[in-house]
């Protein structure tokens, strides 16, 4: 008899990829190098987290275009604003907790109020580290959704990140992107027609029995959950909403109305307070769309420390837990669909 192997605390360099999932290493860093080859205005700036936001790839390729600003997130945002004022396109990197909690005023007044072309790339969004609340940005979207002029992007995987880098370069204005870094899963390769576009939500899987609208890594979980449900004869549609703000109202309404009897689930790697779920709920209510609506997200509390798989199960955002939630509301037998 052997003791069950203890799962270790997921460190800040932990990969969110499940075993066997294809991955790409540092997709943001490599995509930025590629974009920078064509555009000399791109510069990289960080607050002592170059290696932890995959910006080190850019730093190695373009040492003279890389600015190590020190562990000073307020300065990072101000200096990014200054760089943008002089016509450059700064990609500034830190962790989501520090961008949202510590540097808010500087992003708001120095960058967003003046619509400056600064791209804020923040790692460890939501629950992607086991280090506890100091590093878990479970409310960053809630914090930033109220900031005018700021575009918020929550990419699903390496494919999304690669495409979003060029999209951000082509887009003139401030962007906040929730970065997945290190060995990042490749999931969207499976959908050859998929293209990331700022401001667009895209249907990935059609399904008549339920709809999941998701962003970030929860789109991966939604796809996996849909696959598993399909084995039991339940068709779960998945719409990937990589841009949280501005929300693609038109596409979301159209998708929900296509099968008006489907329950709608919004899945996000974020607190159920103030994120994609509430954003879509208010859209549906404003438009008079009445559906069974449930959120799959993190609870409104400071989360625990530990191994990510354990924590994702505990807080209901692992594929297994997503399936469980879906099963409460959806069945292959239409007669047992509960009334909520």
């Amino acid at each position: 008899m052997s003791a069950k192997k203890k799962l270790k605390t997921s460190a800040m360099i932990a990969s969110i990829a499940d075993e066997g999932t294809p991955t790409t290493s540092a997709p943001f860093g490599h995509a930025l190098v590629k974009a920078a080859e064509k555009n000399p205005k791109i510069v990289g700036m960080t607050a002592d987290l170059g290696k932890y936001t995959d910006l080190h790839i850019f730093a190695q390729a373009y040492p003279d275009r890389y600015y190590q600003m020190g562990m000073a997130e307020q300065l990072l945002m101000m200096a990014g604003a200054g760089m943008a004022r002089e016509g450059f396109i700064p990609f500034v990197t830190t962790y989501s907790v520090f961008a949202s909690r510590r540097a808010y005023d500087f992003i708001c007044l120095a960058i967003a109020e003046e619509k400056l072309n600064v791209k804020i790339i923040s790692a460890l969004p939501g629950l992607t580290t086991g280090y506890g609340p100091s590093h878990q940005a479970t409310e960053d979207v809630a914090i930033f959704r109220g900031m005018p002029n700021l575009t918020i992007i929550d990419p699903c995987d390496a494919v999304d990140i690669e495409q979003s880098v060029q999209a951000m370069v082509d887009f003139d204005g401030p962007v906040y992107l929730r970065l997945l870094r290190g060995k990042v899963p490749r999931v969207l390769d499976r959908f050859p027609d998929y293209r990331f576009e700022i401001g667009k939500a895209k249907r990935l899987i059609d399904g008549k029995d339920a709809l999941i609208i998701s962003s970030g890594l929860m789109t991966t979980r939604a796809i996996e959950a849909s696959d598993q449900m399909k084995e039991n004869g339940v068709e779960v549609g998945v719409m990937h909403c990589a841009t949280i703000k501005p929300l693609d109202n038109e596409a979301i309404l159209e998708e929900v109305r296509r099968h008006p009897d489907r329950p709608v689930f919004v899945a996000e790697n974020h607190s159920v307070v103030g994120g994609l779920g509430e954003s879509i709920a208010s859209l549906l209510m404003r438009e008079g769309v009445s559906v069974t609506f449930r959120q799959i997200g993190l609870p409104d509390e400071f989360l625990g420390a530990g191994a990510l798989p354990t924590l994702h199960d505990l807080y209901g955002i692992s594929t297994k837990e997503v399936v469980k939630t879906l099963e409460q509301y959806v069945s292959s037998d239409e007669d047992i669909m509960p009334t909520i």
Partner: protein
Amino acid sequence: MSQTAIGPKASAVEALRQRAYKIRRHALRMGEVQGQGYVGQALGVADVLAVSYFHALKLDPKDPEWEERDRFLLSIGHYAIALYAALIEAGVIAEEEIEDYGSDDSILPMSGMADYTPGMEITGGSLGHGLGIGVGMALGLKRKESASRIFNLLSDGELNEGSTWEAVASAAHWKLDNLIAIVDVNDQQADDKSSTVLNYEPIADKWTAFGWETYRVNGNDLEALIDAFDNAMESRSDKPRVIICDTLMGRGVPFLETRDKTHFIRVDEDEWSVALKQLDEVYGVQ
């Protein structure tokens, strides 16, 4: 050749004295329009602005966004009334705008914002932003191999903000010799005297310790200001420079110079004309 009392420096001082007088007068007229305003600060910093705009800065009044201009960043948004006065005197803003100061649709809002006003480089008001933005712009200018400079006017109260010191450290680290900070020390902030609220003296020693080339002058002494700006601009050192200017709130209007100092100096409705009259008398204008 030594300069005499009627030499070029004396005439330069006299020209700047006239500019400072006009800046003070424009500011008082704006204050009169609204019946309020940060005129105490404007009167105090007028000499610093006269030397900045009419001695130091490279600018084209007809093209406030001229690429080769020096950038003057006002992080203390509430000093906008003073900067508007300087921009009017410089010909960047039309003098008639004074009549609409702070009114609906005016290009001169009471707190300085980049979108509203030609020549207003940044949106100030959330204190502790200007110098950090200046660091980024100075880095950007170096990338472009530009000879332009960044000037940032901040206040002693703004030294309370930790973000200011992140920028102070960074400017020295990056050897930003194209960045000149100007600190208006009037020893007054919102609640009380700056030295009482949170004492930062000895201010000069702190900047020097952070690696800056530091000057401290009487900010109401035009000759001292000219020397400090000249030295700061001509220095061959690779350090950023700071000119710390001790100023007197209300300077140039005797009854305001001696009035109890507050952040928002009180001027009664019937006192605006008195203030303008006293200012004219101080400058010998009938």
